[in-house]
């Protein structure tokens, strides 16, 4: 099967100080697959998400990323979004005075325009929004409020999943969508994501905890440690991590890196 995303030997440093965060990532996601990347704090999880989405402030020092066969790293962030990469932010940003609905409508039409589809008018868009809002049990009042302004943590995350549903991406990257969520909010957000699983879409779930993976069951689990994927497996790996903690990986990696002399 043709791959959706191919990351090869990706090295990434912080632009400001040259500090290297990712030290050679290899990861392939095919259409329909759900991959989970787990790792302790500071392992480079969010950096991976940001680099895929094209956030400024990072430099790729080595390696390549192909999205549907094309060089992703050459594309500006808005082009990546229009091509179908969606990032659900760990910390969704507030935009005062801009209604959630207006924001999403502008975004949808930017994407549709790029794909050669006619722009949606207000009526068609609201119908689409209404349908998707039900998916994440989103309160209508929140749609008319300013983007993320005054939203609770759970509402913000749900809003991210709503945007994802409306924008219909090819590859969705969920950056710690579970952080700060109580169990009910987690269930709703995960339910939204699961509803969007299909044979075409790739999903990359980035998380610290295995808890989320009880709800969004991944096909593959990767452990990110010190800027490298040090272990890959199926969902059993996540359970193992839960059981043994990241310390177990650390010991493993360190002993592999420094063989007994």
């Amino acid at each position: 099967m043709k791959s959706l995303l191919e990351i090869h030997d990706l090295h990434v440093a912080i632009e400001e100080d040259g500090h290297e965060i990712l030290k050679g990532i290899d990861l392939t996601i095919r259409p329909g697959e759900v991959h989970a990347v787990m790792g302790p704090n500071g392992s480079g999880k969010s950096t991976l998400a940001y680099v895929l989405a094209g956030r400024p402030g990072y430099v790729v020092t080595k390696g390549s990323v192909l999205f549907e066969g094309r060089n992703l790293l050459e594309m500006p962030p808005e082009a990546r979004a229009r091509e179908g990469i969606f990032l659900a932010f760990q910390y969704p940003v507030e935009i005062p005075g801009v209604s959630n609905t207006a924001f999403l409508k502008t975004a949808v039409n930017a994407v549709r325009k790029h794909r050669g589809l006619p722009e949606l008018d207000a009526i068609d868009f609201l119908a689409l929004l209404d349908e998707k809002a039900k998916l994440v049990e989103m309160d209508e009042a929140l749609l008319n409020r300013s983007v993320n302004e005054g939203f609770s943590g759970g509402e913000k995350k749900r809003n991210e999943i709503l945007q994802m549903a409306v924008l219909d991406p090819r590859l969705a990257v969920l950056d710690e969508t579970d952080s700060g969520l109580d169990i009910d909010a987690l269930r709703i957000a995960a339910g939204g994501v699961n509803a969007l699983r299909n044979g075409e879409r790739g999903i990359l779930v980035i998380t610290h905890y295995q808890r989320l993976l009880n709800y969004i069951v991944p096909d593959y689990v990767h452990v990110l440690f010190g800027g490298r994927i040090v272990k890959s497996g199926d969902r059993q790996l996540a359970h193992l991590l839960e059981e043994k903690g990241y310390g177990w990986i650390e010991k493993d990696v360190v002993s592999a890196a420094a063989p007994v002399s």
Partner: protein
Amino acid sequence: MSSNPLLDELTTREYAHGFVTAIESDVIPAGLNEDVIRLISKKKNEPPFMLEWRLKAYRHWLTMEEPTWAKVHYPPIDYQKIIYYSAPKSAEGAPRSLAEVDPELLAMYEKLGVPLKEREILAGVAVDAVIDSVSVATTFKAKLAEVGIIFCSFSEAVLNHPDLVKKYLGTVVPYSDNFFATLNSAVFSDGSFCWIPKGVRCPMELSTYFRINQADTGQFERTLIVAEEGAFVSYLEGCTAPKRDTNQLHAAVVELIALDNAQIKYSTVQNWYPGDKQGRGGIYNFVTKRGKCLGKRSRISWTQVETGSAITWKYPSCILMGDDSVGEFYSVALANNYQQADTGTKMIHIGKRTKSTIVSKGISAGHGENTYRGAVKILKSADGARNYSQCDSLLIGDQCAAHTFPYIEVKNSSATLEHEASTSKIGEDQLFYCMQRGLSAEDAVSMIVNGFAKRVIRELPMEFAVEAQKLLGVSLEGAVG
């Protein structure tokens, strides 16, 4: 003998240009003296009271000094190098077709969606394109006349309604008010006059747009609007499309008067030439705007979207005399590249239970300097007065600046005042978030800025609001890399 060399020159030069020869010409030579003022008045066939008023203003102006308190910088203006009267407008030097017009200006019209015909007028193309608009204006005037509204050029008002002009002119902004207003009082070229009779609600938004093509109002514009008891008028000034204008100094005066239960809503979209990206050229917009809520329960609202001009010096104010009268000021001022804006308002509470609201949104980008300067004065007589002020600044980039100078003076202890202020920066985070959803950087900035300015934009009449939103976006193009 005065020690001021300019004054010396003026007083000795007074009769240098022969009055009789000058009157033969359509353009009075550059410079200002009493003869020039007499000549302006004569050209306009003004009654004696008008000339007297102009002369009083001029004589007072000679004793005044240009103010320096505003946070703006510009090279000294030589007032003797300005041409104070030129009519009819000379077509010389004007572009003959749109092909000769600055392509950047045309690109702006394109983005704002200005109809082709209007582009020629706005760009000052020397063609007779005003026929359509004259006929529009005529039907428009007939409709207003039906309900007894007078809406005409200031010159016409002086000739046809001298009693009204005499009664109200200078009652809000006296001829001696300030350096620029006093200069305007002496030399004002033309402007608008509007009188709404008792109990009449003006059936349409009054717009200078319908009038401006008939008369070249020039750089010293004067507007007087009077709403009699229980009258209502919504007045729109300006245009979102930038106008070609070779006059650098603009010193306009606007006076509003609202009697008992009357309401005046005055909306401005100002988009004069701001100068180029290096800050060369551009209009100096030194305007005095003031409204007087003379009657009980009267209401005056100023709404402005200021995106143009190299320098904006403007403080639309309200004198709240009538008991229970209300003053409002909603402003968005944008300073990009090397623009400087020093703007705000004065709310002077005199009557009992008078209420004022100030919402100011300053946007600075590039090397822009944006200053909010406002004063709230509660006089001793103003029992139970209330004011609410909100001053927010938005910064785009790290070379621009925002300043806030709120002055508050309270002489009555029963007053309630609230002041809120904030400064924020369009962050990389906000931009990236929008772009991650597929928006271009420019659309993202436009959206964030419009969100920031929403509270003010929504005070504008509908069609103006839509244009103003576009304008904010267009004015910030290139503000983020």
